[in-house]
């Protein structure tokens, strides 16, 4: 590895390739994520996004290429990789607070620090009042906030988010996106956010990577240099949204 590139990037993806038998799904994907950066990934339907995420989280082996975190090959034992899934995934026998703390338990965060961080993050996402409720007593959006809080609480090296707000209505979506941006800014986390919703990508991300259909490559990179909080009625916002839409619309 060249040292110059490594010094700047928290995450480096090099020639990431995945084949299932003869089927090439991911074709030499290359990109970097800086420390504390929020990068969104968008792509057409069926572009191998699930495979891509599984490779990024090291749930699936890659055929070729690798992922480096701080210059070292990514290793789920050594590194902190957090994941927020599309469907809410709370453990039904644990309360909201116990669900949020779960990630820290798995990662072996010392008890005292665990309690402090839990308190801090519950306040930050406004889950304090519902801390003692069980998942079946809270709404679907609340469940997704639990998953997001749980993921941020482990101070991950890389936080992967798989379209967590895809099914929610616009008003709620903007609210939760604001919450996500606040968490990300406050905790200085490194986030890779996957979505089908281009408006959402432009709203949250500093940079958007556009993927091609299978075999998947990175087709383009779009910088979103708009001030925050962002306004979806801002003509420059709409212009970037159009630009990204055009990049995808050649399926």
């Amino acid at each position: 590895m060249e040292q110059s590139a490594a010094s700047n990037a928290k995450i480096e993806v090099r020639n990431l390739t995945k084949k299932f038998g003869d089927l090439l799904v991911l074709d030499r994907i290359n990109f970097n994520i800086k420390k504390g950066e929020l990068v969104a990934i968008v792509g057409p339907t069926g572009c191998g996004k699930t495979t891509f995420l599984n490779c990024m989280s090291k749930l699936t082996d890659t055929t070729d290429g690798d992922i480096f975190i701080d210059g070292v090959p990514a290793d789920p034992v050594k590194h902190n990789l957090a994941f927020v899934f599309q469907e809410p995934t709370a453990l039904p026998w644990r309360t909201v607070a116990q669900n949020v703390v779960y990630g820290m338990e798995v990662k072996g965060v010392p008890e005292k620090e665990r309690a402090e961080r839990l308190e801090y993050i519950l306040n930050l996402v406004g889950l304090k009042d519902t801390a003692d409720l069980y998942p079946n007593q809270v709404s679907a959006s609340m469940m997704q906030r639990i998953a997001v809080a749980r993921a941020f609480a482990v101070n991950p090296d890389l936080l992967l988010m798989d379209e967590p707000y895809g099914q929610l209505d616009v008003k709620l979506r903007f609210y939760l996106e604001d919450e996500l941006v606040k968490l990300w800014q406050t905790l200085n986390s490194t986030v890779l956010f996957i979505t089908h919703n281009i408006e959402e990508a432009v709203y949250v991300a500093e940079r958007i990577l556009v993927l091609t259909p299978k075999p998947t490559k990175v087709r383009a990179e779009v910088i979103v240099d708009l001030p925050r909080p962002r306004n979806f009625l801002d003509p420059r916002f709409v212009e970037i949204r159009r630009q990204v839409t055009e990049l995808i619309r050649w399926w």
Partner: protein
Amino acid sequence: MNKHVKISAENVSKEFIQKGTQRVPVLKDISLQVFDQELLVVLGPGQSGKTTLLRIIAGLEKPTQGRITLDGEEIRGPGPDRGLVFQSYMLFPWKTVEANVRLGLEMAQVPKEKHAETVRHYLDLVGLNGFEKYYPHQLSGGMKQRVGIARAFSTQPKVMLMDEPFGQLDAQTRLFMERETERIWLSDKRTTIFITNNIDEALLLGDRIVTLEGKLPGRMKKSYEVNLPRPRDPMDMEFLKLRHTITSEQELTL
């Protein structure tokens, strides 16, 4: 402009009885008119009673209070004058695409000699020619919903009732199907009630949007005319402004 009222709901309320005695109010005092050849979108969050409203219009449920009329006649049960498209497709898995559409014609007692021609016409309209002999499990979600749309359109109902038909589709297929629905509706104009919780979908399709308030019982909130040229562009400034108006008048339910 003199608009002919096709469907009229007058003070409709609906309560369900749960666990024997518990009354659950689902709809409260809904009054609403749908005009001939209008595409009316009912936009509401989950738990606003919107599916129940559609089922009452379809005649699958009876209102607890109030009444609904179609062409001035009170609705007392289901009938071939109303075509339904469900969220969950509702196709018969052991029947081919063609046979699923033909079933609608059989139910509506369309003369047999017209079946082949009608089935072909509507499968053409939804872009499924070549797939006549396929079974539902061989089709994608978007294609399954097209079969449902062809089946509902083919009996020439006076009214189309569509209950979140694209809720299960991914964003890209969804946009494509919304465009298709608009195209089909423009080429074969029918009074349509379209239920959704997706505001972009509502603005792409509706001549008018009626909003329901969340949390049971569902109540009517407001009605918005959508005076934007078709096909509509979801990134057009007027589109976005109207979306902003509608969302800012809805409450945030966490």
